[in-house]
């Protein structure tokens, strides 16, 4: 199993470390690689798109045309985990809380509508305990940094977690997206969930 971390911008090393911890905890032999080039993205079994700035990651992946390849591979069934900026890039519809309509490159595979910067600016960023039933009863410490929220979901999208009424984690087939940053805490359960998804695909 080869898991790729899209290594253009953002919390790349943090995801690398967390994925290795998750693999080890599940006793699965797998390789975790930073991927940037077309050929590297072709050979992976799953992809993590990290948190960072979605405009930057989208810009770079459209400049070197990997965005089309990622889209094609996801349509072929490759599991993908997008956190924060990664979630934004996976969405089909995106707007900004202040600016409204945004012009940015998207992978656009998830049938969801995203509101960017939904909680406000950095001083409004927060951490909070979340209930995510699919990974167990124990609460998950969610770190929300200038985070988006999911305002609308299509019929094929499963809601994994809400903060009050706000949708903050979703799953559509093998695509998992979180508005928070599981790579910043020491709880590997979201990464384990993603790895399970890859295992199911490889069976």
């Amino acid at each position, binding site marked *: 199993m080869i898991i790729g971390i899209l290594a253009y*911008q953002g919390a790349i090393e943090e995801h690398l470390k967390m994925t290795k911890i998750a693999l080890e905890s599940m006793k699965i032999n797998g390789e975790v690689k930073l991927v940037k080039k077309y050929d590297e993205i072709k050979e992976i079994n799953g992809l993590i798109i990290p948190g960072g700035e979605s405009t930057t990651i989208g810009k770079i992946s459209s400049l070197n045309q990997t965005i089309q390849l990622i889209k094609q591979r996801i349509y072929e069934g490759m599991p993908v985990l997008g956190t924060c*900026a990664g979630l934004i890039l996976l969405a089909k519809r995106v707007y900004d809380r202040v600016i409204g309509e945004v012009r940015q490159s998207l992978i656009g595979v998830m049938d969801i509508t995203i509101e960017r910067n939904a909680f406000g600016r950095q001083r409004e960023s*927060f951490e909070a305990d979340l209930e995510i039933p699919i990974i167990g009863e124990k609460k998950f410490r969610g770190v929300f940094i200038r985070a988006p929220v999911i305002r609308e979901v299509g019929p094929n999208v499963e809601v994994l977690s809400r903060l009050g009424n706000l949708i903050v984690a979703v799953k559509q087939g093998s695509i998992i997206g979180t508005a928070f940053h599981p790579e910043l805490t020491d709880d590997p359960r979201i990464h384990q969930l993603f790895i399970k998804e890859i295992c199911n695909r490889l069976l």
Partner: protein
Amino acid sequence: MISLVSEVKNSKGLKYDILEGVEVKRGSALVKRGFAHMQKHGVIMDVTNIEQAQIAEEAGAVAVMVLDKLPYDVRKAGGVARTASLKIIEEIMDHVTIPVMAKCRIGHTYEAKVLEAIGVDMIDESEVLTPADEERHIWKWDFTTPFVCGARDLGEALRRIEEGASMIRTKGEPGTGNVAEAIKHIRIVNNEIRRIKAIYESGDQQELVKIARELKVSYELVEEVGRLGRLPVVNFAAGGIATPADAALMMTLGCDGIFVGSGIFKSEDPLERAQAIVIATTFYDDPEKVAEAQEMISESKSMMGLDIKTLELKMQERGTS
């Protein structure tokens, strides 16, 4: 997963609130340092107006830093350099989706409070502006907004982290288009870290205590540097970066990302240059890609550089205590 070393418990910057019926915590080291982690491998660009901010966003900047004048012009103008006009900062916040940062004077707690009040995403307590307090920096734990500070060596970096900085950058020599000082500063920091790591691994705690005393910081901070083999917060390059190759070089020296001050908007090809520096920062380990980026710009359009030896004002010597 990220280091929370030195966090002050019950600091004034911590805020508890109820959001959607859920208890939330704001201004923690996790949330502030976490913000800096999201900037990694990115380029933060100095801007003075909306047009420049939009060019930066279009080029793929991860954030913009708002100043009244670019560092090169601060040097030329002389006088007292203060924080930018709030109106311009607010206008820029209304026109770009990426984070907006702004600079305040070293030790000027109230300029920082004002920047926090209008919602700036990160505050740079910066030597580019005229220092307001020669003795003390801002006590940054009092703020919910994260701070970045400059450093020329490990002692400066760790003292700023102990005061609550969530991110460090090299000082370099701002406004010169000359990357030499930034290189010097990152090398000094790297060498000091390597030495502490070796001592940490040897188990010689007494020597670590001695180093902590020399650097005037807590033992736990020195120990954490030894354990991690790097700074416990994100560390960017700044001060004199003007070309894609400059950015790529700083990344190979172990920097987590790049600040570009005068290098972009004092050049004659700002959009191309901004894009090229973003590409070079992402693909720094691939010389062919960096060459492609370098080809996007023309050296005849680079800003005029300044020789460090002839400078009347060395900004890096400000706020070293």
